């Protein structure tokens, strides 16, 4: 079976620092993958490389078997890869509904002009992440961190992705908010959405992932089921330093 996404020997250097070193892994369709590691391990750099927000020094990225390294960010999104950011990046001067609208837009100037926004679908997507009409009319500055994370998820879901890259979706959230996002991701997993999730919150990560890849200093140190990776000696050493 061809993997949905495959990274082959990816290397990224920042001057003398090798942030990602010969990383290779894959994620299959319908699978959910956890990407863990201590701070500075290179997890977000991997996401930046997948989205072409950074260019790799060497290595290949394949989506459904086709090399996509030369594609621009928006072209990769059009092929089904979307991401969230560690610090949410909403369009600050737009309402929640308009933020979702941007995520739903076709990359076609004629359609953008000729077709009105699909407000019913905006509501539907908002509802899928728990936003009612009141929240849809709010501005990002009026939202909690949990709501901002849900807004990013809504904007991503609006793009109808094949693969979702979730970067620290639980960071800065209360226990209740973590539970809400977690439930949402479990639901999406049941619906067959493929995602790669980066998180330091290993307890919250456990029920969400089929498989885990652990990184340290830009290199893969373990791969397997959640329990296997967590009990790996190298992973414990990377996290605890002994």
């Amino acid at each position, binding site marked *: 079976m061809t993997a949905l996404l495959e990274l082959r020997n990816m290397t990224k250097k920042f001057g003398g620092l090798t942030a990602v070193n010969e990383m290779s892994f894959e994620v299959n369709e319908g699978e959910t993958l956890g990407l863990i590691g201590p701070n500075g391990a290179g997890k977000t750099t991997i996401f930046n490389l997948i*989205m072409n*927000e950074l260019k790799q020094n060497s290595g290949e990225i394949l989506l459904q078997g086709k090399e996509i390294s030369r594609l*621009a*960010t*928006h072209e990769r*999104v*059009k092929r089904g890869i*979307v*991401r969230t*950011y560690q610090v949410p*990046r*909403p*369009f*600050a*001067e*737009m*309402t*929640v*509904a*308009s933020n979702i*609208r*941007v*995520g739903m*837009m076709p*990359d076609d*100037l004629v359609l*953008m*002009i000729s*077709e*009105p*926004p699909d407000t019913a679908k905006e509501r539907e997507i908002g509802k899928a992440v728990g936003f009612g009409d009141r929240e*849809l*009319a*709010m*501005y990002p500055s009026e939202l909690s961190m949990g709501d901002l994370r849900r807004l990013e998820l809504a*904007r991503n879901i*609006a*793009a109808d992705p094949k693969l979702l890259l979730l970067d620290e979706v639980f960071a800065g959230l209360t226990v209740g908010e973590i539970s809400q996002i977690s439930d949402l991701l479990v639901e999406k997993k049941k619906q067959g959405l493929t995602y790669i999730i980066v998180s330091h919150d290993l307890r919250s990560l456990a029920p969400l992932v089929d498989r885990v890849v652990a990184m340290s200093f830009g290199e893969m140190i373990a791969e397997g089921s959640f329990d296997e990776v967590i009990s790996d000696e190298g992973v414990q050493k990377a996290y605890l330093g002994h």
Partner: protein
Amino acid sequence: MDRTGLGKALACWAVFGIVMCLLPFVVTTGTLRVFIFANFLAMFAMSWDIISGRTGYISFGHPFLIGVAGYTTAMLTYHLDVPLFLSIPAAVLAAMVAGTLFFVPALRTRGTYFALVTLAFMELLYGLTQVVQPKITGGTRGLSGLPSVVSGAVPNYYLSFLVMFAIGIVLWLIVRTRIGTALSAIRMDEDAVKSTGLNTTKLKLFAFMVSAAVAGIAGALYVHYLGSIAPRGIFEINFLFTILVAALLGGPGTIIGPIIGAFFLTCLLEFLRPYIPGTERYLIYGLVALVLYYYAPKGLYGIITWVLERVGVIKPEGAKA
């Protein structure tokens, strides 16, 4: 915007149009000439607004586009006796082509760098028009005795107003579509727009082409209204700042704001003339601009919509979503 909101907005446009059409019946020719300049300034400011106000790419080079169009139609009519119905479209096309050739590479830069690159193009054209082929461009003195499209204050007023009004409505309708939303999103976070799958280069190019076309139409008509063109008039830094201040004062990114700003600014400068005849007037307008930016960064348009929201004429922005 819902149907009621759209209806109210179109009613506002209609009232504005009717009032402006009736103006020649109630004001003097001198005042009418002031309004002709306000119409041209509104066109220039809207042209700036569609690229800079919307996307946040601040252009200091709009006089470059206006100058390309102005010089194209001036040279065609002056040297070759090309009729205006051909020279003006040629001028608009020239502005769009020159804009694409020179400014689109500049769209690779952002922020201050984009502003400086565009400013450099304006300065470059300022220099070139004076030294390269002065027999054709008229050198430092420029070209005068250009044919006018219509003659007399009233016909010129109606021409400039109708063109400005048409441009205003077209641009307003464009920014009301999803393209307007996408261009605003670029101003807020361009990388986040890319990560939603939109090609921001294509969107910026579209905004830029529209901006260049408007600058071209306005620039060509402007030189034929004046009957002359000279480098010092078109490429003067004050001309650039007047366009910017009109857009910012009125409310950037709104299309309607720059129209309000252009009329406010032109009227302010003209009505101050009897009291402060010299260039000291610009100190007053600088002061007004400073106070407005400080207390109302969304400009006069922001103040007007705030008042209308408070009195219940329009719904607050968030409530429309």
